[in-house]
């Protein structure tokens, strides 16, 4: 039984600001703990327990505020300490021991630890500690969608409201719905799920479509391997998504929304559920929102573990209780969508952009980005890069800036080889294009696509043929199997790629792959099939040499494909410790103590155990 506490936004805002003030200017220190999925996976719960114990041991009462992921996932667990009136100091890579140390130093002794701190968050600074957002991995970012991530408690609606949340909704409800659509059109916002379709145009079609009821859907299926932008937003700032959906629903005339979350995101479901409950309690969802005639509510629906359900028609089929299979989109879903009704489906990040567009105006949004790609894009920067995590950059920033300035470059001084964007639907972009400004059209021109925001960095040790093989393997498992072209075509391509990576490739295989790419692109039923050609074609275009070497010389130049390269002991470096000799399951290594060993290539099965065992870097991949 929910009771509406207030229907008056100014009252809510007043209360929220007082609540925030109490928190920030109270008499208790605050412990801000990153408990996004990344933080928890890194051990945040254990660190927090240790911190709590240390606090209890010293009889210190502190307020623990759970926050979502601030974006520097590689530095999790993160624990921030803020004394009343003092700086909020962010500590990174906090193990339980480090947690105790920090509590001891910072809270008990009153001495923040510059040696363990990453940076300060907020207005108040600390001597010897830089500002977090001035650090190289944050400074070039423009945080719009991620502005609240890591800074507010996602389960506290008051924090969102104190930061201006739901003000955009109030503003929108006072506008004509068509005026709301015009603002979104003016902003130039394009779908952030991968399609890049102009959002304002989609909403206009939704408004003009005939039929009641109309639906709005949030696509939270985020299936690309390595992508976690949507997860982070849903976990760390769920209200932004909800507010965006409400504004969109108002604009098109819908009263029912759905958030489809992939089943593999349980924390996102928890956070969204809490956010919806709180919104309802505060009169921000349900009947007569904020005292107007607009009524709207949202239901959460969970996926069943299918990448293809990120495709809009398959998602809608799944929502209807049918198996997740796409249909041809000759009749658009804005006209015939969920249950055959007009439906506007947008991605999590797209919805999360909407409140600020309404609050600050479409012109403001359009002032960021490039001519045809406005605003920012959230990327999950992963792979062979130092600073892995979530980044938000203005459209138009170059790949080089993202990978090297924000990402900190390639670890171990390895050479950059390629960056893969767009997940299984995207392609690999080599070094010569590092200065390409990131935007929808530029990436498509290069044979890749923006996609949902996965950005995988690859170095000299990455086999590009294997990259294509990996994505095709994924696609074969995820293909719904409805259409001949994708089901059989992807299987044929995977068969060839497996053969090539096993050293059994034949002359002509690449030509067959390219033919299949053409067929997929032209004849597949849905986006999964039509874009399956991208990983294959882009790697063939830019890294043909690797394919040729695999086929003609049965050799993998990146030394990744097992059996297509040799392990050799470098005599000058070998200390004769016999570690590799003992590891070798084939008895292929011979040698005496303190004398260089040798590998018998005839016996070697290329398992790599010797390489892993050597502590002196004396085994080379050749």
């Amino acid at each position, binding site marked *: 039984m929910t009771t509406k506490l207030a229907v008056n936004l100014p009252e809510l805002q007043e209360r929220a600001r007082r609540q925030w003030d109490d928190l920030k200017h109270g008499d208790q220190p605050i412990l801000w703990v990153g408990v996004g999925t990344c933080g928890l996976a890194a051990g945040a719960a254990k660190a927090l327990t240790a911190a709590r114990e240390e606090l209890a041991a010293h009889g210190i009462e502190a307020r623990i505020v759970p926050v979502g992921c601030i974006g520097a996932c590689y530095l999790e667990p993160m624990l921030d300490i803020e004394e009343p009136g003092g700086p909020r100091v962010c500590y990174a890579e906090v193990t339980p021991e480090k947690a105790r140390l920090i509590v001891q130093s910072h809270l008990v002794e009153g001495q923040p630890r510059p040696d363990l701190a990453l940076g300060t968050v907020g207005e108040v600074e600390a001597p010897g500690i830089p500002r977090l957002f001035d650090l190289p991995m944050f400074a070039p970012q423009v945080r719009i969608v991620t502005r609240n991530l890591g800074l507010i408690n996602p389960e506290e609606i008051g924090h969102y409201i104190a930061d201006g949340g739901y003000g955009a909704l109030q503003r929108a409800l006072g506008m004509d719905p068509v005026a709301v659509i015009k603002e979104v059109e003016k902003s130039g916002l394009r779908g952030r799920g991968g399609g890049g379709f102009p959002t304002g145009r989609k909403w206009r079609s939704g408004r003009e479509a005939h039929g009641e009821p109309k639906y709005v859907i949030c696509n939270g299926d985020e299936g690309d391997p390595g992508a976690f932008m949507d997860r982070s937003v849903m976990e760390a700032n769920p209200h932004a998504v909800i507010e965006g959906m409400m504004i969109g629903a108002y604009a098109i005339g819908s009263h029912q929304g759905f958030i489809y979350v992939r089943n593999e995101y349980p924390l996102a479901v928890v956070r969204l559920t809490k956010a919806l409950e709180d919104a309802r309690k505060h009169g921000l969802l349900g009947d007569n929102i904020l005292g107007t005639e607009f009524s709207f509510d949202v239901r959460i629906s969970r996926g069943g573990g*299918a990448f*293809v359900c990120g495709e809009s028609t398959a998602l809608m089929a799944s929502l209807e209780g049918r*198996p997740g*299979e796409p*249909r*041809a989109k*000759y*009749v658009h879903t804005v006209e015939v969508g969920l249950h055959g009704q007009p439906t506007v489906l947008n991605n999590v990040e797209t919805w999360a952009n909407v409140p600020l567009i309404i609050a600050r105006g479409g012109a403001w949004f359009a002032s960021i980005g490039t001519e045809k790609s406005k605003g920012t894009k959230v990327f999950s920067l992963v792979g062979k890069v130092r600073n892995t995590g979530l980044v938000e950059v203005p459209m138009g920033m170059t790949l080089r800036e993202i990978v090297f300035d924000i990402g900190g470059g390639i670890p171990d001084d390895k050479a950059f080889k390629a960056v893969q964007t767009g997940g299984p639907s995207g392609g690999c972009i080599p070094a010569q294009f590092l200065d390409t400004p990131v935007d929808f059209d530029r990436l498509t021109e290069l044979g890749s696509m923006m996609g949902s925001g996965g950005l995988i960095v690859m170095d000299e040790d990455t086999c590009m043929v294997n990259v294509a093989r990996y994505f095709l393997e994924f696609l*074969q*498992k*995820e*293909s*719904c*199997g*409805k*259409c*001949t*072209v994708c*089901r*059989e*075509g992807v*299987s*044929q391509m*995977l*068969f060839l790629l497996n053969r090539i990576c096993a050293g059994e490739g034949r002359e002509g295989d690449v030509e*067959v792959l390219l*033919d*299949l790419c*053409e*067929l997929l692109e*032209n*004849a*597949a*039923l849905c986006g999964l099939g039509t874009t399956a050609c991208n990983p294959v074609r882009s790697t063939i275009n830019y890294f043909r040499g690797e394919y040729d070497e695999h086929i003609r010389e049965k050799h993998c130049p990146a030394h990744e494909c097992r059996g297509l390269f040799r392990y050799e002991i470098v005599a000058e470096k070998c200390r004769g410790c016999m570690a590799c000799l003992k590891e070798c399951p084939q008895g292929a290594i011979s040698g005496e103590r303190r004398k260089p060993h040798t590998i018998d290539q005839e016996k070697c099965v290329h398992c790599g155990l010797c390489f892993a065992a050597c502590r002196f870097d004396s085994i080379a991949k050749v």
Partner: protein
Amino acid sequence: MALTIDGKQVEATPGQTVLEAARAAGIDIPTLCYHPAVTPYGACRVCLVEVSVRGRRRLVTSCCYPASDGLEVFTDSEKVRRARKGVVELLLARAPESARLRALATSMGIGEPRFPSVTHGERDCILCGLCVAVCREVMGAAAIAFVDRGVERVVATPFREGSEACIACGACAAICPMGSIEVRESETEVEIAPFKNRRPALRCQKCGKVIAAAPFGERLQERLGEKLTLAVMTCPECKRKATAVVVKKTGAVGGAWSHARPRQGKHV
């Protein structure tokens, strides 16, 4: 409304697909997963044609694509031929023994299959979905459906066990373009293979020969009503004999069939 197919003006009515309009005009577009009795599915990709919309040309499945006024359609362009060839080659790789596919391939000038078999269609099944559709939409039984995903996808009953929902009517076998489904009759039951659906047999009231499955007979009685009960409960031969008697008796020859009725309860 009028569209242009291969340069020829073709009339169409609102709601028609390009395929329907083409067929009505006598233009041949090959299909596998299409059947007028069920909703178009767009799975096999054989019926691909090229359409031009606002100067942009792309391949679409004609079975699903709505006909519209002024639409330009190309059923035999280079792009269409290449795509269709690729589709049939992929199907051949999956079901190399299928006579139907080989005939289609030959008619398209495809010789030796270019692709090896890396997937296998059990009994040449190409997952066209016609059996699933006819079972659900026409017969109202929904005893079979697609199960699993991707290359594992097959048509099966729930939990791959014999289904009580199956009325063993054989519509699936009749509509299957590949001959993958078999109706087996024994003295006591009718079986739909490979679904392991076995239902008791219905015997001819006159001669006792097995004519169909009992649940199918019941369904027919429901749908056709009392007056046609005899038609349902007798085998084709006995039906013919009964009809011959009636025709003889009423003197009705070629045309007066509507007046001839088997007399209730009287079996001649």
